[in-house]
C-alpha cells in the first residue's frame, strides 16, 4: 500500500507543477458547472445532521435527520414528526421496496413501514434494540436490515427473522449490500462476506485487502453487478466480486474517509467523505476518468458528508453532518468568461482537438482548452506564440491545425515547434491579406477555404489548389460565409445576399436561392443532424431544415427566440441548439417544440458569434461569444417532456387546514387523502393543493385543473399549485388536475382526480320535500273539510283562495331555481305563475260559487221541507 501511496504522491506533485507552469503562461481554470441549494430554516428544514435520504416512486424525498423525518415534494418540506407522534426517534436508515413503500429504521432500533400515509411498526424497538444502520430490498423483494452490532434481520411478508451472528457482535457494522446469494457487510475491521443458504447467513470470509480497514460504505455498480465499490477510512476501493481482486482508486486526498457512495445514470459515482467533502468520480468502463471535488475550499457547504443520494432525475442530494441538506444543481449552462481572465476576445470558432480537448480561434490568438488528468474543471491556455494573429475559423485534423485569420489569410499552426506558417492559396498571388471566413475538410480530406472577396478555394489534402470558385468563373458570390461538406459528399455554400448553393459530386453547381428553390438570402451556417437532415441558419429568416426534398422553416412564429440565427449544432439525441445574439433556442423534433433560453443569469453571456459552435466528445455543446464561451451541459440535460404524477395533497375549507378524516367514513387511506369525502352544505368553500414533483425545478411545472360538475373546461395554464372553489352547490364533484413541463404540450389522460360530495341542507332533502307536500295536502284537506262545515261563504272563499295561493307560491319557489338557466334574472317565471294563478282563480270561483249556491239552495230546501213537516 505504501508504494501505491508514494506513486500517488508523486503524481500529485507532478500535476501541481504542471498547474504552476500553466498559470505562469496565462491560463485560467474555469469553475465547475454546479450550484448548490442549502436547505435550512429559511426553507422550513431544521435538520443539521442527515442520516438517510431516499426517494419513493411518487417522487417524494424522505430525509432522516436529527430534527426528525421530513418529506419534500419540491415545494414543501414537511416535518412528519409534528404530524405523527409515532415518529419519535432519529431515523438512521431508509429504503424503498419494489412496490413503492418506504421503510424506516431508527437510531434506537425498530423498523417501520409507511403505508397509506401512516406508519406501522414491523419490528419494535424492544424486539430489535440496536441502531439500524442500513435497510435494503433485494431482487426478491425481501427487506434486509443491518444493526450496528446485533446482526441482521430479514423481513418477508411481515415475517421477521433475526440473524444474531457472533462475529458481527464483535464488530461495528456500517453498511451492507445483497449481491445474489451473498451479503457483504462493511465493518470497522473490514468487509465481511456472508453466503445465504437455505435461509441461513453463513459467514464466509473477510474480503481480501480490507482486513483491519474501517469500511463505511458499500455500493454495487449499476452497470456491472460484479463490481463492488468499498468506501473506507483509507480511501475508495473497487472490488471485483467474481475475481476477488481489489484495487485502490487513486486521486483521492490523503486521509480521506469515505462515508457514502451513490451513482447517477451517467456513469458518475458520487462519493461522500467525512472530511473532504464530496467527490464526483467520472467513470469510463469502470475506470476513473476524472475527479471533481466539492469541499469548503471550493465553496461547498461542508466537508463532512453523512449521506449522498442521487434521485430519479439524477439530482444529487448531499446530507451533511452538521450543515444540513444540500442539493447539487448542475447548471444547464455555464459561461466561461475569458476576457477578464486571460484577456481573450471574440471566440469566432471552436474545434475539437485530440481526445477530449478544444481549440478556440479568437481575436487574441489560439486558446487551448483541456482538463487535468482525473479532474474535470476546464483549463484555458493561450498559446503565446499565436497572439499576433486574429483567428476567424479553424479546421483540425489530428495534430494538423488550419486556421483562417482576419488579415493574414490562411495559416497552419505547429504546436510542437510553436510556429505559425502562412499558407498560400493561390501560387499566382503570393501577397495575400485575405479575411478568411471558413475552412472545412470534406469526407475525402480535401480542404475548402472561403476568402472574403475571393470566393472559395478547393485544395487537395496537401494544400495544393484544385479549383477556385468565384464570380469570374461563374460562381454566384465571392463572399461565402459558410461551407459545409455533408456526409454524402455534397458541398453546401451559404452567402449573404445571394443565399444557398450546392455542389453535388460529379454535377454542376446548383444555386438554390437564385433558382427560387430556397427562399432565404442571408445564410450564416449549415450543419447536418444524425438523420442526415441539413439545417441552415439565416440572418432574418430563422432556421430551415432540408430532408432531401423539402425545406421547412422555423421562425419566431414557431417559438424561435429570434429569426437571426448565428450558429447551430445537433446534440447527441438529435435536438438542434441554435445560437442567437439574444440567447439560445432548442428545437425538439420529438415533441415538435421549441424552448428558448435567454436569461443572463442562466447563460451568462447571451450573444453567440457567427458560426461559432462545437460539440465535444461527451456531447456538450459550446457556443463562442465575444468574451468567452457558453457550455450547454449535455448529456445531463436533454429537456425531455416527462409525464409526472400529480398528487392532490390537501383539501382546505375556507383556506384553513382541517382533519379530513372527519369527512369520510372510509377506514382505508389511499395515497395522501382519504377517499369518499363528504362535506356539509356549509363547507362549500374548498381549496385544493396539488403538486407534481420536480425536485430540480419545482417552479417549472405548469398545471391545469377542472371541477366536473362546475367547470366546463380546463382552467388556464398556470404554475400555481392551488385551486379554490367557493359557494359550491350541493352535489357530487370530481376535481381533476394535470401537469406539464411545457405549456404547449399536454397529456390529457395523465391527471389526478378526486371525487367528493357536498351534502344538501335539510330543506333540500327528499324527506323534507315529502314533508312539505304532505303539509300542503293537509292544508288542502283541512280546507276541504272546513269549507263543507263553515256557514260563512266569505270564510269558505278565504280558505280556498289562501290554500291556492300557498300551493302556487310553493310551486313557484321550488321550481324557479331550476329555470334560472332559461329565464336568467328576468321575472318571466314569476309573471307566468301569477298569470296561471289568475287563470285558475276564475274556474275555481265559478265552481266555488256554484257549490256554495247549491249548498245554500239545499239548505233552504231542507229548511223548507222541515218547515212543511212541522206544519
Amino acid at each position, binding site marked *: 500500500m505504501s508504494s501505491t501511496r508514494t506513486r500517488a504522491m508523486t503524481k500529485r506533485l507532478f500535476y501541481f507543477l504542471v498547474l504552476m507552469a500553466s498559470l505562469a503562461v496565462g491560463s485560467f481554470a474555469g469553475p465547475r458547472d454546479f450550484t448548490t441549494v442549502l436547505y435550512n430554516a429559511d426553507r422550513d428544514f431544521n435538520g443539521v445532521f442527515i442520516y438517510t435520504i431516499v426517494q419513493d416512486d411518487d417522487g417524494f424525498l424522505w430525509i432522516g435527520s436529527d430534527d426528525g423525518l421530513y418529506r419534500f415534494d419540491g415545494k414543501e418540506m414537511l416535518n412528519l414528526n409534528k404530524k405523527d407522534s409515532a415518529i419519535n426517534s*432519529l431515523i438512521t436508515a431508509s429504503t424503498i421496496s419494489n412496490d413503492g413503500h418506504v421503510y424506516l429504521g431508527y437510531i434506537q432500533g425498530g423498523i417501520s413501514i409507511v403505508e397509506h400515509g401512516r406508519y406501522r411498526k414491523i419490528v419494535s424497538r424492544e424486539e430489535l434494540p440496536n441502531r439500524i444502520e442500513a435497510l435494503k430490498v433485494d431482487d426478491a423483494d425481501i427487506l434486509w436490515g443491518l444493526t450496528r*452490532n446485533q446482526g441482521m434481520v430479514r423481513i418477508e411478508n411481515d415475517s421477521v427473522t433475526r440473524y444474531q451472528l457472533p462475529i458481527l457482535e464483535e464488530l*461495528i457494522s456500517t453498511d451492507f449490500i445483497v449481491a445474489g446469494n451473498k451479503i457483504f457487510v462493511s465493518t*470497522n475491521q473490514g468487509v465481511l462476506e456472508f453466503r445465504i443458504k437455505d435461509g441461513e447467513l453463513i459467514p464466509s470470509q473477510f474480503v481480501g485487502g480490507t482486513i483491519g480497514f474501517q469500511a463505511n460504505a458499500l455500493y454495487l455498480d449499476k452497470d456491472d453487478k460484479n463490481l463492488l465499490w468499498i468506501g473506507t477510512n483509507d480511501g475508495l476501493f473497487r472490488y471485483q466480486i467474481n475475481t476477488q481482486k481489489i484495487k485502490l482508486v487513486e486521486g483521492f486526498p490523503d486521509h480521506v474517509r469515505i462515508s457514502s457512495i451513490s451513482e447517477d445514470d451517467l456513469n458518475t459515482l458520487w462519493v461522500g467523505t*467525512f472530511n473532504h467533502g464530496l467527490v464526483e468520480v467520472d467513470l469510463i468502463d469502470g475506470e476513473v476518468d476524472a475527479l471533481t471535488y466539492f469541499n469548503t475550499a471550493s465553496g461547498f457547504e461542508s*466537508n*463532512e458528508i453523512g449521506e449522498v443520494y442521487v434521485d430519479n432525475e439524477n439530482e444529487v442530494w448531499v446530507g451533511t*453532518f*452538521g450543515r444540513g441538506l444540500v442539493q447539487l444543481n448542475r447548471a444547464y449552462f455555464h459561461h466561461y468568461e475569458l476576457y477578464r481572465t486571460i484577456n481573450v476576445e471574440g471566440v469566432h470558432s471552436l474545434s475539437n482537438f485530440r481526445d477530449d480537448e478544444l481549440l478556440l480561434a479568437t481575436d487574441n490568438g489560439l486558446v487551448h482548452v483541456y482538463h487535468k488528468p482525473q479532474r474535470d474543471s476546464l483549463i484555458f491556455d493561450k498559446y503565446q506564440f499565436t497572439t499576433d494573429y486574429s483567428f476567424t475559423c479553424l479546421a483540425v485534423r489530428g495534430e494538423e491545425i488550419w486556421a483562417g485569420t482576419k488579415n493574414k489569410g490562411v495559416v497552419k499552426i505547429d504546436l510542437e515547434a510553436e510556429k505559425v506558417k502562412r499558407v498560400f492559396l493561390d501560387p499566382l498571388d503570393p501577397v495575400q491579406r485575405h479575411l478568411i471566413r471558413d475552412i472545412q475538410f470534406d469526407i475525402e480530406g480535401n480542404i475548402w477555404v472561403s476568402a472574403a472577396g475571393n470566393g472559395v478555394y478547393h485544395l487537395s489534402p496537401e494544400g495544393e489548389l484544385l479549383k477556385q470558385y468565384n464570380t469570374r468563373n461563374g460562381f454566384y458570390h465571392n463572399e461565402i460565409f459558410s461551407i459545409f461538406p455533408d456526409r454524402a459528399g455534397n458541398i453546401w455554400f451559404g452567402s449573404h445576399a445571394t443565399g444557398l448553393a450546392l455542389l453535388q459530386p460529379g454535377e454542376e453547381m446548383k444555386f438554390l436561392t437564385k433558382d427560387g428553390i430556397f427562399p432565404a438570402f442571408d445564410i450564416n451556417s449549415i450543419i447536418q443532424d444524425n438523420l442526415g437532415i441539413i439545417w441552415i441558419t439565416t440572418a432574418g429568416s430563422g432556421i430551415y431544415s432540408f430532408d432531401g426534398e423539402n425545406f421547412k422553416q422555423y421562425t419566431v412564429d414557431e417559438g424561435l427566440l429570434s429569426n437571426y440565427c448565428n450558429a447551430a449544432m445537433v446534440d447527441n439525441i438529435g435536438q438542434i441548439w441554435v445560437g442567437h445574439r439574444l440567447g439560445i433556442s432548442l428545437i425538439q423534433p420529438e415533441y415538435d417544440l421549441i424552448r428558448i433560453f435567454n436569461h443572463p443569469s442562466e447563460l451568462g453571456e447571451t450573444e453567440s458569434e457567427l458560426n461559432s459552435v462545437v460539440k465535444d466528445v461527451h456531447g456538450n455543446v459550446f457556443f463562442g461569444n465575444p468574451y468567452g464561451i457558453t457550455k450547454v451541459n449535455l448529456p445531463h440535460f436533454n429537456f425531455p417532456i416527462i409525464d409526472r404524477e400529480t398528487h392532490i395533497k390537501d383539501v382546505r375549507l375556507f383556506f384553513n387546514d382541517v382533519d379530513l378524516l372527519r369527512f369520510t367514513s372510509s377506514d382505508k387511506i389511499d395515497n395522501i387523502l382519504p377517499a369518499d369525502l363528504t362535506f356539509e352544505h356549509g363547507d362549500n368553500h374548498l381549496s385544493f393543493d396539488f403538486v407534481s414533483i420536480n425536485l430540480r425545478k419545482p417552479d417549472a411545472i405548469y398545471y391545469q385543473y377542472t371541477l366536473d360538475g362546475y367547470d366546463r373546461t380546463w382552467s388556464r395554464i398556470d404554475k400555481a399549485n392551488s385551486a379554490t372553489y367557493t359557494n359550491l352547490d350541493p352535489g357530487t364533484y370530481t376535481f381533476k388536475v394535470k401537469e406539464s413541463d411545457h405549456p404547449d404540450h399536454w397529456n390529457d389522460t395523465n391527471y389526478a382526480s378526486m371525487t367528493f360530495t357536498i351534502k344538501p341542507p335539510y330543506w333540500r332533502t327528499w324527506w323534507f320535500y315529502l314533508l312539505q307536500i304532505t303539509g300542503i295536502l293537509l292544508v288542502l284537506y283541512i280546507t276541504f273539510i272546513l269549507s263543507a262545515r263553515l256557514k260563512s261563504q266569505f270564510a269558505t272563499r278565504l280558505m280556498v283562495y289562501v290554500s291556492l295561493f300557498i300551493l302556487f307560491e310553493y310551486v313557484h319557489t321550488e321550481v324557479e331555481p331550476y329555470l334560472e338557466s332559461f329565464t336568467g334574472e328576468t321575472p318571466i317565471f314569476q309573471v307566468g305563475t301569477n298569470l296561471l294563478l289568475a287563470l285558475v282563480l276564475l274556474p275555481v270561483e265559478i265552481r266555488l260559487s256554484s257549490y256554495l249556491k247549491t249548498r245554500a239552495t239545499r239548505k233552504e230546501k231542507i229548511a223548507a221541507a222541515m218547515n212543511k213537516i212541522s206544519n
Partner: protein
Amino acid sequence: MKYSLTALLIFFTLGSKAQLVPSEFEQITHLVTFGAESKPGWGDDDHTQVFFFVVPESFTKPVYIRVFDPDIGGKHDEPNGSWDTGVKFSVYGGQGTHSDPDAKKIDPIGNYKSGTLLASKLFQAEARYDDQWYTFGPFNPMEGEEAPELNGRVFKVIAEGIAGNDGNLYKYFLSTKDQENKEVEGANAFTYEYSFRLPEVKNSVAHLYPFIDDDVISITQHNFDFDFEGSILIYSIAKNRHRATASANRQWGTSKHPIIDEEKNTTVDLQIVKGRTSRNDMVCYITNQYDEAIAFFSVPVGGPPKFKYKVNVKYKDKGND
C-alpha cells in the same frame, strides 16, 4: 455525581479551553494502558482506562475524538520485550453511557461497556499511527448520553489492553475538526480512575483535579505503584498540601481525609511530586465516604483551587495578654 448550580456556572464561566487529555493543567505527559499480559508492577492495575467527554448541550456541530499515538510501538510507548501488544479504543454514546452504575466504577467489571458502541479500533504496532493522531467520528453530539447534571452530552472512551505486555502511552483530544485539534468550547473530560505517566524530572508535579460535591464529608485517596518516588499532597481551598499516603511498588497507598464545608463544591488538587528523576506509571482514584468514586476532571471545575489563608485579626489571644 451531583453538582451544584454554582459549580456548574463556574465550570462554564471559565470555559474549558483545553480539551487535550491529559490537559496542560495536569502536567501529565501521557495516559497509560498496558497490555493484558503485563505485570501490575509496571503501573497499570487493570489494563483498562475509561474516560468520559462532555459536550455542552448548546453545541450542535459534529465532534471528533482524537487519539494521539494509539499504536503500541515506536516513539512514545513502553516496551517489554518485542512489540506484541494490542490496545482497543472504543467510543460509546447513548443511553447508559455514564448513567449506568457500573460505568462509574473504578474497575472494568459488570456493565462498564454500557451505552451504544459508536466506534472501535484495535491498534498494535503500526508505524503509520506512531506519533500521529487518529480520529474517531464525526459524532453527532445528540448521540452522546444526555446528562442534565453536566449540562451536556457524554461520550465514553474505553482503552483496553487486549494482548501483550507493552505499555501504550497516548493522549486524547475532543475536537471540532477531523485533522486538527480545535477545542469544543465548554467541553470537558473526566475519569474515575486515572492511569498515567508521571513527569520524569525530579521535583516536577503532576496534578489531579477531583471535584468534591456537597454531600462529601471525607475522601479517601488511593494510589498504586508510585514506588515511594516522592510525595502525594492534597491542596484545596482549605488544605495546604496535606500529606497523603504514597504507595510502594505494586502496592496501593491509601489515606482518608476529611472534607470541610468550604471544600464542598470545589475542586481539590491532588499533587504528585517526584522525588527523583525516573520513568514511572501509576494509577489513582478517590472515593467518598460511601466508597463511590469521585471523578477527576481534566480541566479543573471552577479552576485550580487556591488555598485560603486564615489569619485571626479580630481577637487577641487571651493567653498572651
